[in-house]
């Protein structure tokens, strides 16, 4: 654990995130142009999608893959209920905002996942390539649960905007790009990937550094501006990744996933969306306050996961796998 935590904090990826946080807290004017930040996020999704697809084109799809997919989808559907209960009960949020926030915690953060993969690989526990598909599958179910919670069953929402929203949910740009690149990875395989790997593979960690620098800047600036977030909400933004991480990792180990994949699934459960879900919420629940859901997921949960929780989940996965198996 010691080495783990230390390795985390000597990785340039994490250090650039810390630099972003510090620069924003010092009120430096350092800023990445929005077009560049958007371009980097598309690059990261295309690259991670392709790499996952190439991995699956080698390993094939077996029972473990289907188990992990099923577990991920179920988690995404169900996690918002717990989040909703805490948000209404403890943080006193109204139904609308509680449902919107819950959707974020059921869904996933691509960058948290990617950072976890980097860290797990350094620790010698690389997750399976199929985990990318699991991640893509976990993006949307939580949105449906969150809307259900926010609006109630017999909601009077116009069917037009529901259709628009469902379309947004299933064809939003991150889902399309992740799954599209995943399919391209499967079709073109290792040979096709070789042609483009200098771009998608060799450049990956460097781009991730600059992207995390930007995320650090944005997360810190947002929390300095935050008005709507109370200490109760902040507490939940720390508690949920801990709880969801433990549940996800334990279930994954219990169902037989390898250490790395179990940790990755735990991280997915622990992470909160701040790209796909906010976009869907703005359309489907425009009355909900982005100042609450973005600040919680991006400014509290995201740094907590990157800096602390990935390390904890990785250690937990190792411990649990060690108990269940003879070989460490």
């Amino acid at each position, binding site marked *: 654990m010691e080495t783990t935590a230390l390795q985390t904090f000597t990785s340039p990826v994490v250090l650039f995130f810390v630099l972003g946080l510090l620069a924003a807290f010092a009120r430096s004017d350092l800023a990445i142009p*929005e*077009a560049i*930040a*958007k371009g980097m*996020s598309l690059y990261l999704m295309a690259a991670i999608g392709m790499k996952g697809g190439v991995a699956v084109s080698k390993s094939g799809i077996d029972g473990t893959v289907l188990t992990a997919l099923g577990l991920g989808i179920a988690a995404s559907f169900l996690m918002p209920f717990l989040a909703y209960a805490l948000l209404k009960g403890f943080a006193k949020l109204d139904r609308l905002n509680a449902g919107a926030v819950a959707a974020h915690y059921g869904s996933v953060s691509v960058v948290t996942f990617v950072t976890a993969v980097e860290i797990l690989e350094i620790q010698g526990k690389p997750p399976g390539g199929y985990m990318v598909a699991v991640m893509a599958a976990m993006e949307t179910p939580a949105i449906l649960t969150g809307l259900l919670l926010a609006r109630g069953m017999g909601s009077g929402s116009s069917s037009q905007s529901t259709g*628009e929203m469902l379309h947004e949910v299933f064809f939003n740009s991150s889902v399309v790009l992740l799954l599209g690149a995943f399919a391209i990875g499967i079709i073109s395989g290792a040979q096709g990937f070789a042609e483009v790997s200098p771009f998608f593979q060799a450049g990956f960690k460097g781009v991730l550094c600059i992207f995390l620098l*930007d995320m650090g800047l*944005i997360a810190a*600036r947002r929390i300095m*501006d*935050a*008005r*709507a977030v109370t200490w109760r909400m902040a507490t939940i933004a720390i508690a949920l990744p801990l709880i969801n991480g433990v549940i996800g990792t334990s279930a994954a180990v219990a169902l037989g996933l390898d250490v790395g994949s179990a940790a990755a699934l735990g991280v997915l459960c622990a992470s909160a969306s*701040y*790209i796909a879900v*906010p*976009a869907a919420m*703005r*359309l489907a629940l*425009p*009355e909900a*306050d*982005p*100042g609450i859901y*973005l600040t919680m997921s*991006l400014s509290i949960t995201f740094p907590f996961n990157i800096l602390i929780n990935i390390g904890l989940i990785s250690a937990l996965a190792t411990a649990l796998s060690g108990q269940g198996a003879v070989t460490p």
Partner: protein
Amino acid sequence: MIETVTRKRIEILTDTALVKRVTSAIDSAGITGWTITPVSSGKGRDGHWREERVMGTDKVFVLTIASEEKADALAEKIAPLLSSHGFLLSMWDVQVIRGERF
């Protein structure tokens, strides 16, 4: 001297995600066109926001030029969404050339 006529110019500040709500209101008010311009940041009652395209917190201005009558119809349609969707609407008289096209 070129002949000009008076029309209303309406400008609506909206989240990028909600642009379609605004433009379909314009279309259904029978207005012939609209133009969208980018916005970088702002401050209102809900505090400060910045364009963060990755998170989708960017806003735009939708602007349209129309006859007074159609402009009023549009304002009527948009008014209920102003608070719930966080829109900001202002309008004023402008002179245009070739007024028949608006």
